[in-house]
């Protein structure tokens, strides 16, 4: 260990310091006002999960921003044809399966609505849970519409629709490597599909946590953040579709 110089009361005037304080703890700073940050209660857990999701959406956004800039750059880029030694534009407009894409869009938007219903349904369930444990209180028979299940079905429906769209693309002669434009169609739709698949898996987990004996609160939090994620995916899809349809 180092030999430390003896601790003496300082006479050196403090030069500059940060928020030096002899003030009492500031409520609202840090975790002020909230209960313990270690084991958050239900609302604390929900808030933290939502915050985490919001942050997680940033790199996903960056991924697509990056793809978009590559798309725009590549589209306007002339390339040198070494056989003729001339500068050529090789951007080949892709014949998009627009009709199928539109149907898929409707399916995805519908699923975005149903997932919102599922989210609210779970929020209500959690709110009513304490009441049900009171003896003599009956909330009536559960007539819950399976919004979660419907969303999963619609999500899988969208993914199947995308797969059909790729088949149609292939049928009209546009493969991944056919040209730069077709590569981007597969890239953008494929990456979006992978992300949506993640959402479907998350909803499946939320649906099956009954089996895994997870608490209602945990399920509600998973459903809540997945719903927000799902809305984001729907918006992202509309953006991708607009990019492909309008900027080709």
């Amino acid at each position, binding site marked *: 260990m180092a030999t430390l110089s003896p601790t003496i009361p300082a006479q050196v005037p403090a030069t500059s*310091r*940060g928020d030096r304080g002899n003030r*009492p703890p500031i409520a609202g700073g840090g975790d002020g006002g909230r209960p313990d940050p270690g084991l958050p209660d239900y609302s604390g857990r929900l808030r933290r999960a939502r915050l985490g999701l919001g942050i997680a959406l*940033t*790199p996903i956004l960056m991924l697509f921003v990056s793809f978009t800039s590559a798309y725009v*750059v590549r589209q306007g880029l002339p390339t040198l044809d070494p056989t003729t030694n001339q500068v050529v534009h090789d951007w080949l407009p892709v014949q998009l399966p627009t009709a199928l894409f539109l149907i898929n869009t409707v399916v995805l938007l519908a699923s975005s609505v149903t997932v919102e219903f599922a989210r609210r349904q779970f929020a209500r369930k959690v709110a009513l849970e304490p009441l049900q444990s009171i003896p003599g209180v009956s909330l009536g028979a559960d007539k819950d519409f399976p919004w979660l299940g419907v969303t999963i079905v619609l999500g899988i429906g969208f993914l199947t629709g995308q797969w059909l769209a790729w088949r149609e693309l292939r049928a009209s002669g546009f493969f991944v490597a056919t040209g730069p434009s077709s590569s981007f169609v597969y890239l953008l739709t494929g990456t979006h599909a992978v992300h949506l698949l993640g959402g479907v898996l998350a909803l499946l987990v939320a649906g099956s946590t009954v089996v895994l004996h997870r608490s209602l609160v945990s399920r509600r939090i998973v459903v809540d953040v997945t719903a927000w994620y799902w809305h984001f995916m729907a918006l992202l899809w509309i953006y991708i579709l607009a990019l492909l349809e309008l900027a080709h």
Partner: protein
Amino acid sequence: MVAQEFHGHAAPQGFIRKYVFSLDHKVIGMQYYFLALTAVFVGMFLSLLMRIHLIWPSASLPLIGEIKPETYLSLLTMHGTIMVFFVLTTAPQSGFGNYFLPIQIGAPDMAFPVLNMLSFWTTFVAYLVMLSAFFVVGGAPLHGWTGYAPLSALPSSGPGEGLGADLWIISIALFCIASLMGALNFITTTLDMRAKGMTLMRMPLTCWSWFITAILGLLAFGVLLSAGILLLMDRNFGTSFFVPLGTVNGQLTGHKGGSPLLWQHLFWFFGHPEVYIAILPGMGVASQVLSTFSRKPIFGYKAMVYAMLAIGLLGFMVWGHHMFMSGMSPYSAFAFSVMTMAIGVPSAIKTFNWLGTLWGGRIRLSSPMLFAIGFVSLFVSGGISGPFLAQPVLDIQLHDTYFVPAHFHLIMGVAAIFGIFAATYYWFPKMFGRMMNETLACWHFWFSFIGTYAIFMPMHYLGMAGHPRRYSQLTEVSYLKPLMPLQKFITYAAFVTIAGQLIFLWNLFSSMRSGKKATDNPWEATTLEWTTTTPPPHDNFGGHTPVVHHGPYEYGVPGAPRDYVMQNDPATVATH
């Protein structure tokens, strides 16, 4: 109240849950640290092989044999990649950040412990995949850590560019995903888990540096991931994002005409912020240590925070300065040049504030302080050549010469490593409950400090004399022959410096076993990690959460009973 009630997860009992698949941020931090420790020795060994080859090109080495030109390029690629990703990104941020961010802000763990564990194990798999590239047919890739297309995009372009290059890209992609998970955790933890009274402007500067680094990582790694996906598609699905129409190595590529420049834009949009990802945590540690061992508040706390934010922001606007020689409009080059030189302003603010902290302080030259001062020195020496390279006119001359490795090794390589050393000597007592040997630490410092200057200072002269980098053998080139003695000197210096690192290794492991027992606050520091026991309990503060009353650097407070006031000290001291 029992500790477990406060903690998101109970203290694990079994060996596997406790030390292998642990959810405890402290264990995960140490796992990252030891991963980086193995990686730094692999990377250093590769650099040693390169240095040997540069002065004795026909030397036959045991196990490896004679180094062929393509082997040299493999060594260069793997040295750069392992050092940048698995050392400079891993140790200061994921290692120390994981261990100390929650403790310094008064939290019992990271916000998402399971994600944290996943993040480490993904990094670990990425590391294994990276190392496996050495052992596949063709060996490790040749394309440098920057992976420039079309060399990186065509499996036929060289011996290591087959499976080796695929493994390299997959490893980088995994690393991106792991880093994104880590960044998500760091940001959520910083925003949501601060103890009562720990306002943002009361956070230690280390926490600020980890927080800003995490934001940079969050924005940058997604872009690198996208570039990696495109590169994999070019290599394996015949797309043409980066491969131009035409011939490579005399063969028609069959590609449609992509843009190699596109790769460079995407890569450097990540690559430049990555430089700050490596160095910012070092700045945080240097600030922390300089203040503690000068027994003075950090000079200009808020200026330090805003300077780091400015460096982070500007870091995203300067990627083009890596591409002056790639073909760029002079107007864009001018813009990138001006933005790059603007980074000198917040960097200078930081440097002067460090010097201001030292000025008039009652300096204790313990081992962390030596390395923190070394950090400042290297940061200045490496930084000063930045404005040279930032000017397109000068860059045209200096590009691809040894001047560039000299610059970036000093500033992002060795300076960041000195930050890691400072952090190791500073926090070792807290992590392992024992003190490191100060005499050995002193020897280690002088070996490293003089050694790195001896290695990298002469490289500036090599560069200005026109010695190109990346070539495996230039010993027979007549205009470079007068420079050979300098090259020899650098290699000898490298031998000595690397030998000096063995002192560190010995000190580290022997102190873990038999170092002097550390007290809870051996450095008389003020931040929250020094208020808990050594080493900290599973939930960091033994069943309660601290309440913060003070800023992080209350040293030399007039009227206080001691010359420092802990952050959680409720006593009100009369200050001005």
